[in-house]
């Protein structure tokens, strides 16, 4: 289904919750709404669902304006971050309820098929309150999928689950989305989740839609500092810098050889911001690398990665190292950085230089 938002904005009282925006999520694909809490993701999603009406602008489905249409008459499905099921109905009746309302056939069979796809076939006779959080959310997902709606909205559906459960369910979800033919909108606060879901990403911040595009593209080439900040975890290291003949000079730090766009390169007084992703900082030096000596504040270990917080001459930085590494608090450590892997933003926060990536544009 083709969903188009044209000039959507939302005010509550005098306070703007959403600033005017246009968005046409890619048809029959997953679009992730990425942004911190209060970024406006839920407000936007409620407008898409028809639960709220926008203050201005229109919502179109397959070219038809549906802005004022009550939610009952739209064909959408929604999953919330709280585990929302009908507490007085058994799991099977919960999943069946949208089908029953449309008087469809083979309900039993379809409920069973869906339940087994979400691994809850043994729970069909129970009530939602008797299930664990993960199981409850599976029931909610099954009910949403039962409808087979061409537009499926998920508002941080995994946020209230343990991380391992989240991982499992997320993977199942990506498979379900890949198999289906609905337009899926998925809100999350976690950049990592957006990347794992793939598809398309719309980055939101403080009620504004900042950038929309294929997820990997938005990640690798954020148009602005705000997008870069919103779409990085651990946070992108942002270092103050100035343009010099060679490239950029980090404030109270080394210079990096980067070819800046000609207009910037001419203006040698320009205030720039250099963005370095945590994963771009390495322990081993390679040719052409710049060294950043510092002192370890903390090494956070996730198993697969170690996140080192470091105080250096250019400020606090975070590095992401693969595997388990131990560093004592206060231990000296030098990290290395390739100038080819940094982002440069101008004083207004617009992207000037992004790292080249293999296979990328």
């Amino acid at each position, binding site marked *: 289904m083709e969903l188009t938002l044209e000039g959507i904005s939302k005010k509550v009282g005098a306070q703007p919750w959403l600033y005017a925006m246009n968005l046409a999520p890619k048809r029959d694909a997953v679009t992730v709404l990425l942004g911190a809490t209060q970024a406006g993701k839920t407000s936007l999603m409620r407008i898409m669902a028809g639960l709220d009406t926008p203050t201005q602008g229109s919502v179109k489905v397959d070219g038809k304006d549906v802005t004022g249409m009550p939610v*009952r008459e739209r064909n959408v499905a929604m999953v919330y971050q709280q585990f*929302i099921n009908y507490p007085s109905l058994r799991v099977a009746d919960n999943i069946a*309820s949208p089908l029953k309302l449309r008087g469809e056939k083979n309900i039993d069979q379809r409920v069973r098929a869906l339940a087994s796809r979400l691994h809850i076939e043994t729970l069909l006779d129970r009530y939602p309150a008797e299930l664990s959080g993960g199981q409850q959310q599976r029931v909610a997902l099954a009910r949403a999928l039962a409808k087979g709606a061409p537009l499926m909205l998920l508002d941080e559906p995994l946020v209230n689950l343990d991380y391992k459960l989240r991982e499992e369910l997320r993977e199942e979800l990506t498979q379900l989305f890949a198999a289906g033919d609905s337009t899926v909108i998925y809100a999350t606060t976690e950049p990592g989740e957006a990347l794992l879901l793939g598809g398309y990403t719309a980055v939101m911040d403080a009620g504004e839609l900042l950038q929309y595009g294929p997820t990997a593209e938005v990640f690798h080439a954020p148009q602005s500092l705000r997008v870069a900040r919103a779409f990085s975890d651990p946070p992108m290291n942002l270092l103050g810098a100035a343009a010099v003949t060679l490239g950029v000079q980090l404030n109270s730090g080394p210079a990096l050889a980067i070819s800046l766009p000609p207009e910037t390169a001419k203006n040698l007084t320009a205030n720039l911001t250099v963005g370095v992703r945590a994963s771009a900082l390495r322990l081993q030096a390679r040719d052409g690398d710049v060294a950043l000596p510092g002192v370890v504040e903390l090494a956070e270990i996730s198993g697969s990665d170690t996140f080192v917080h470091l105080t250096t001459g250019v400020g606090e930085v975070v590095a992401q190292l693969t595997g388990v590494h131990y560093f004592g608090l206060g231990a000296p450590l030098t990290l290395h950085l390739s100038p080819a892997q940094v982002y440069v933003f101008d004083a207004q926060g617009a992207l000037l230089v992004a790292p080249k990536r293999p296979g990328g544009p």
Partner: protein
Amino acid sequence: MNDNRTLPRTLFLVVYIVFALLPIYWMINMSFKTNEEILSSFTFFPQHFTWDNYKTIFTDASWYSGYINSLIIVAINMTISICVALPAAYAFSRYSFLGDKHLFFWLLTNRMTPPAVFLLPFFQLYTTLGLMDTHIAVALAHLVFNVPLAVWILEGFMSGVPREIDETAYIDGYSFPRFFLTIFLPLIKAGVGVAAFFCFMFSWVELLLARTLTSVDAKPIVATMTRTVSAAGMDWATLAAAGVLTIVPGAIVIWFVRHYIAKGFAMGRV
């Protein structure tokens, strides 16, 4: 582990329970005695145990019709109160609309107004309408305090149900009435129970309006009980039996809502 500290509390609780039950026990005790025994000897247990007082009540129309009248009044009142309060409570718990806060406050003031204030106008109003001494008159009069109460209690229970459930239902395609009856009502049935219970209770116990608006045909038991002086003096035994019988329905109902009673009181602020 801290037996030495819980002991005084248990003791206090026991003393209070004795204080709470003793007067009630005394009335029950008396209801099984004869008037002669009540007036002549002073005993903790009936010496001449008798059901006569209850028999009197169940056979004498002037007594038992009082109960029937009370039940009719309460039933009408309860039904109307719950039926009008349900949609209103839903509106208050789910939407904001022009003047909602003022309206809620105004409803509340009616709960808090002394029935004595309404005594005179009710008398006039129902006389004019020709409704004096009918069940409906008392039932309607009791709406003054029961409707706000029911709205208040139900609103409290409804606010405990996440609004996302309503939205999910609308998204699934439920119409409002169907959603309300098949999904929402079962979720707040405890609230409906508690609200009905309090409507029952307050209508059942109210004396002033009930006595003023009725004379014979619709006279409820509470009013009947205020006139028990016969030629032979006070008929204490029958009065006690009548009193015991008024407690019974409340005691039965309270058992069913015992899990919610504390919550109901906290929420209903009755």
